[in-house]
């Protein structure tokens, strides 16, 4: 259905950003907060209204705001597409975004750059909404790069700290690498179909080769944006930004854009099963890789960052096995509990006057009970312990991986072995990762909230004000309540909950994988295993980091696996490896190229060399120009003789 109000959803926060950014310095604080919050809230309300009024038969709202640019055969509209997927994500973005705005009012109140902060935050919401709502790849790319920009600005928010500024730059550049992949993906699709809009791409017939290349290129974009191997390195560093930013951008919304894009392009990805398998594999590897690193981090935000990378890996397993609904469902639930976790960590940091080191926390449950409770709820959710949302969404992914038929047609090379067992491998890796996830999340909880207070002297841990704790409670509640969208479809069939069931809800939205969706399996075995895994992780954490002796838990862990833990703690030396492999060689190469090629060969040898040659010739010629007029006259006479000779004796008969 064509409507004319969709553009308001991203436009309102954008207007808020403009007002805050241009006038914020002079506006009274209260006004500024009001503008920033109300614009987001209004967007949420519009989104909610639209969501509830989506027509049943064709659940799509569509609007072409204006023709952005067209040249040759290319036609790019600034158009918006509001269907069940983008609608739900709009609600998540504006909803969680609004809560984080509220939280930020408390968190950033004392920072002199608060107006800048809210401008960026609103700009981010606008960009993210453009990404989600864009009805074509280019509009999506606008949001895609826009969120990257906001991420850059917010990570480097405290720009006087060189390291934080560097982290922002790193995030942007690494994202750019992915973005270029995304761009090339757009070009491939345009080259093949002559269009960039989802509506036409969703039905365009594509050859396997084109689909694979396009899917691969777009996935490179997703790898960058969603921090997957090998481009995940920016996300942990991105924790340099204010904590609410980490919650909103680097956990709940922006980083999930890659998952959203793959789901949005399900038609393309199901046409390229090889790339689909790659998506799942990358997701699984990243999930495991980041979870392992997460076990040995001491910065509370870094633990959460690696857990985000790991959870994103889970989502990619979900979309990679063709279960787009499972991946996106985890996206939604993850948004709630991860935002809750990050905000909780923010409250901890706030209450400890900036302390982020888990080793210098402990026993905080006594000082900040609300934070501790909500943190615990979210930890339960992420560990996949029954019955909170994470359990269902994560298990749905694993179950879909185990039973997937997406790879049935896939062989390893022409005539090679079939890849039917790939799903099982993914399941095993995913389950093991779930175990580790549960372990490190509980470790984090125990270290921070249980045991004795080990923090710095003179700091009085205290609970945060209500404006910060209330979003925590709401998010914790959402983490619990969102379990309803993950209940297995057979359980809710017929009841009013059916409409809330994610699989049912998004049913017609995604193209099924080539082998069709897995059907007719019982969820119970998977649930039992998952339950066991969740508790096992908790148990392991308890063994090593039991509240009473949490402080020495790391030592016990190190005693068990000394080398492994060292590798985890050093993040597998990936940053150092990239530095050695790419960063430093590139800069040295640039300098060498400049000195040797540009300055010496082109400029020195050719340019100044030819000038030098002219100077030599001139120096030679100068010896004849000695100022003696009579010698000039003599030479002239010689010339006249030559001319006369030539004219009179040579040329005429």
């Amino acid at each position: 259905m064509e409507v004319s109000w969709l553009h308001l959803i991203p436009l309102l926060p954008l207007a808020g950003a403009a007002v805050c950014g241009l006038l914020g310095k002079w506006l009274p604080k209260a006004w500024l907060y009001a503008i920033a919050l109300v614009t987001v809230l209004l967007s949420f309300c519009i989104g909610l209204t639209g969501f509830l009024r989506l027509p049943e038969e064709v659940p799509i709202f569509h609007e072409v705001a204006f023709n952005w640019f067209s040249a040759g055969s290319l036609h790019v509209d600034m158009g918006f597409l509001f269907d069940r997927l983008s609608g739900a994500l709009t609600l998540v973005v504006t909803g969680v975004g609004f809560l984080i705005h509220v939280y930020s009012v408390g968190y950033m109140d004392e920072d002199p750059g608060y107006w800048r902060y809210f401008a960026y935050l609103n700009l981010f919401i606008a960009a993210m909404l453009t990404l989600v709502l864009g009805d074509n790849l280019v509009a999506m790319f606008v949001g895609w790069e826009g969120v990257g920009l906001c991420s850059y600005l917010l990570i480097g928010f405290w720009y006087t700290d060189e390291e934080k500024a560097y982290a922002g730059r790193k995030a942007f550049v690494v994202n750019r690498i992915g973005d270029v992949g995304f761009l090339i993906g757009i070009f491939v699709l345009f080259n093949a179909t002559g269009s960039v809009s989802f509506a036409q791409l969703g039905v365009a017939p594509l050859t396997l080769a084109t689909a694979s290349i396009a899917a691969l290129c777009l996935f490179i974009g997703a790898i960058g944006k969603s921090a997957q191997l090998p481009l995940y390195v920016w996300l942990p560093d991105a924790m340099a930004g204010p904590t609410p930013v980490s919650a909103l951008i680097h956990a709940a919304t922006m980083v999930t854009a890659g998952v959203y894009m793959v789901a949005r392009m399900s038609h393309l990805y199901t046409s390229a099963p090889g790339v689909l398998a790659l998506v799942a594999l990358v997701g699984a590897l990243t999930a495991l890789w980041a979870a392992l690193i997460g076990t040995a981090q001491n910065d509370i935000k870094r633990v959460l960052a690696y857990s985000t990378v790991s959870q994103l890996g889970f989502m990619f397993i979900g979309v990679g096995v063709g279960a787009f609904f499972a991946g996106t469902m985890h996206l939604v639930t993850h948004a709630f509990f991860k935002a809750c976790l990050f905000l909780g960590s923010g409250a901890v940091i706030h209450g400890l006057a900036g302390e982020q080191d888990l080793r210098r926390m402990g026993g905080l449950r006594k000082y900040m009970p609300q934070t501790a409770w909500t943190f615990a709820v979210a930890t339960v959710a992420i560990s996949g312990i029954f019955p909170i949302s994470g359990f269902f969404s994560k298990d749905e992914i694993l179950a879909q991986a185990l039973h997937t038929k997406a790879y049935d047609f896939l062989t390893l090379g022409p005539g090679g072995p079939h890849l039917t067992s790939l799903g099982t491998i993914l399941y095993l890796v995913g389950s093991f990762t779930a175990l580790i996830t549960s372990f490190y999340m509980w470790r984090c909880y125990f270290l921070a909230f249980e045991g004795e207070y080990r923090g710095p002297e003179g700091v009085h841990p205290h609970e945060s004000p209500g404006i910060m704790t209330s979003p925590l409670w709401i998010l914790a509640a959402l983490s619990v309540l969102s379990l309803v969208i993950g209940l297995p479809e057979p359980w809710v069939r017929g009841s009013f909950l059916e409409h809330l069931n994610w699989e049912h809800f998004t049913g017609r939205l995604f193209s099924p994988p080539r082998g069709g969706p897995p059907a007719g399996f019982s969820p119970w075995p998977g649930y039992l295993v998952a339950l066991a895994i969740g508790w096992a992780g908790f148990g392991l954490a308890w063994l090593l980091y039991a509240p009473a002796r949490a402080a020495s838990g790391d030592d016990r862990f190190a005693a068990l696996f000394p080398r492994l833990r060292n590798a985890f703690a050093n993040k597998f030396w990936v940053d150092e490896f990239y530095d050695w492999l790419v960063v430093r060689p590139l800069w040295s190469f640039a300098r060498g190229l400049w000195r040797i090629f540009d300055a010496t060969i082109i400029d020195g040898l050719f340019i100044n060399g030819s000038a030098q040659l002219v100077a030599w010739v001139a120096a030679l010629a100068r010896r004849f120009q000695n100022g003696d007029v009579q010698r000039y006259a003599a030479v002239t006479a010689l010339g006249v003789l030559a001319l006369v000779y030539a004219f009179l004796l040579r040329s005429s008969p």
Partner: protein
Amino acid sequence: MVDFFHAHQAQHYLVLAALLFALGAAGVVLRRNAIIVLMSIELMLNAVNLTFLAFARFPLVANSPMQGGFSQGHAAVFFVIATAAAEAAVGLAIIIAVFRSRTSVNVDEFDSLKL
């Protein structure tokens, strides 16, 4: 009259002009005194004038292609004379100016033009 033309065609005048030109050129090349150099230049100019007049008098075609006919040769001589007068005036002025600063009129001592 006719016999005279028979005996004295342009070539005699041209040879005379060549010799006069050579004299002037030799003066320019050989003499150091700037005034004499200038006078030698006048000689050369007159040699050129002589050629103009000779060719104007003994044309190879019946009608001149130029407007004004063969008198154009005379017009050219007229301009040369005017130019020569101007040149002599400026040249002598330069000689005076140089003599003031260098107290010499020897051209081989004037070499400030060299790079």
